[in-house]
């Protein structure tokens, strides 16, 4: 009764977001992923393996299609490198490329780099809740280097798994929607196994990128070796 109700709710919202992130990332995660990219012209599938520790470090290796096999990505904090076996080169992604599309998907390099820093970069507020879900508004911290004006995240109760994230620009125009669906048991937890990114910009409207998580193991020890530049080439094979 003493606390102002709004503060209590903000705290509660922050708690929820933190939990959602933990549920999504785990302490560490090893995932097998299929990515389906649909444009008005074509549909394309990629497969990859991902190794991550929290949200700070991750290592990705492309396994399909054959011609891209062995392309690896390493992300440590805010820096990103890639290795391309065909050219036998490790390339550091320059700042000016960070907002370019990652592998032609509707995700940018930057999305990968700062993918799960929502709890760090945003202040959360519960907009509404029903018996089955919360709707949480996320406003960027004044200091946070994020382009969005606001996010609205739907979170399923009681598992605290994300349902959708709507990305708005500063003027409140919806720019893209990320949907998390098909929750099923993966590894030790319930997990949304299908993520769909739907750009809403005029130029890309109608495209979509689908991420399907086919296998997942959480909270296992991952060899630190994965998170070094040497690994890019070494684990490319």
């Amino acid at each position, binding site marked *: 009764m003493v606390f102002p109700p709004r503060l209590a709710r903000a705290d509660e919202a922050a708690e929820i977001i933190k939990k959602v992130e933990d549920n999504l990332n785990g302490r560490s995660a090893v995932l097998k992923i299929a990515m389906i990219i649909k444009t008005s012209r074509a549909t394309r599938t990629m497969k990859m393996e991902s190794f991550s520790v929290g949200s700070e470090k991750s290592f990705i290796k492309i396994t399909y299609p054959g011609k891209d096999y062995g392309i690896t990505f390493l992300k440590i904090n805010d820096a990103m490198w890639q290795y391309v076996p*065909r050219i036998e080169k490790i390339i550091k992604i320059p700042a000016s490329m960070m907002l370019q599309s990652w592998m032609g998907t509707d995700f940018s390099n930057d999305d990968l780099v700062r993918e799960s820093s929502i709890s760090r970069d945003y202040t959360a507020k519960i907009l509404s809740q029903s018996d089955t879900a919360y709707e949480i508004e996320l406003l960027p911290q004044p200091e946070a280097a994020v382009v969005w004006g606001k996010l609205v995240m739907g979170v399923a109760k009681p598992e605290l798994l994300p349902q959708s994230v709507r990305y708005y620009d500063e003027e409140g125009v919806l720019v893209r929607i990320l949907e998390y669906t098909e929750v099923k048991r993966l590894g030790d937890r319930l997990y949304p196994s299908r993520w769909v990114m739907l750009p809403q910009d005029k130029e890309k409207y109608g495209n979509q990128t689908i991420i399907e998580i086919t296998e997942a193991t959480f909270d296992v020890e991952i060899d630190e070796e994965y998170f070094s530049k040497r690994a890019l080439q070494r684990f490319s094979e």
Partner: protein
Amino acid sequence: MFFKIAVRNIRAYKKRSIITVILLACTTALLVFATAYMDGSHERMIRSSVEIYPGYVQITHRDFRDSPSLENLIFDAGQVTAALADLPGIAVLTPRYESFVLFAAGNKAVGGMLTGIDPAKEGRVSRLWESRKQGEYLEETDSALVYMGSELARRLKVGVNDEVAFVGTGADYSFSADTLRVKGIFRTGLFDFDNRAAFVAKSYLDRVMGAENYATHFIVLPARPEEAAELAAAIGERLGPEYEAASWRQTMAGLVQAMRVDTIFGYITLGIIFIVIFFVVMIYTMLAVSARLREIGILRAVGTEPGQVWRMLVMESVLLALVSVVAGGLIGGSLAYYFKLHPIVFSGFEEQFKQYGLAMTDMPTAFAPLVIVRDMALMFVLSVAATLYPIHKVNGYRPIEAMHHV
């Protein structure tokens, strides 16, 4: 009759006639030459910037110029080529596939533009082939060989036969990367272009980027470059609303405007010279007719009508003007013709030209007979007009007054 008298008078006042003719002829020559130089240099500037790379007419997907994404490519290049095969006025039609990639050599990674071209045709529509500085130009069948801008090569620290890797996105958004060998290095002199651009054979790039039969745009070299705008319209009509055909007047609107500003200032400058010449001609006519005041007075006294005197004097100035303008036109015209064949070279001003997007320093003049005749007509009117006031003034004297005038 007036004609004979006029000729006799012109002969009689030789010095005045000669000076007037020289003055007017020189001015006409100056005007003709200045116009030829201005038009010629503008055409050269436009040609040069258009021909380095952008081309006279660009054909793109209708939305490509507003939003140059992979969604707005030309997806059936063959169809475009076929549709335009029998359109008159096209000298060369060639597709390009441009793609932004990351170049990497050693530990250097630099963003740039990798473009697939048809080497033979490209050599005719742009300056790429002529700008070769080292190594060789591309050939159609070249695989994984790159022809690279000099500044880009410098930044990557590579030379001919060195390896450069590129990483980019294919037309199907797939990942695209390969190792290229530098076949040649070009330098157009345009820093920005030399700093970003690299070329490979289109057949090769189509394979690596999954872009068979695709193009970002087509470049058209018109049979008559001066009719680029009309040709663009004709192409647009032929291809229908799915495509856009833009002439250099649209793609390089800023340059067109800058040339217009330059022309305006050119004419202001010439205008000021004309004002001075106008006065000089007027003064000389004044001197000439007032020296003949007594003669005119006598003519009037023996019963010649003022109108007849007027006609006689005007006929004189018309004849003088005609002779001068023709002489000046010939001089100016031959200068224009000579400097069209042997362009004026501004060595030491390369940077200045580069800033205007020009990688050359020679400026041929234009030789356009119609424009020369126009300038001659202008000078003719001007020089006759300059004599009217003095003639009018002299004619205003009464016969007795004039006879006694010293």
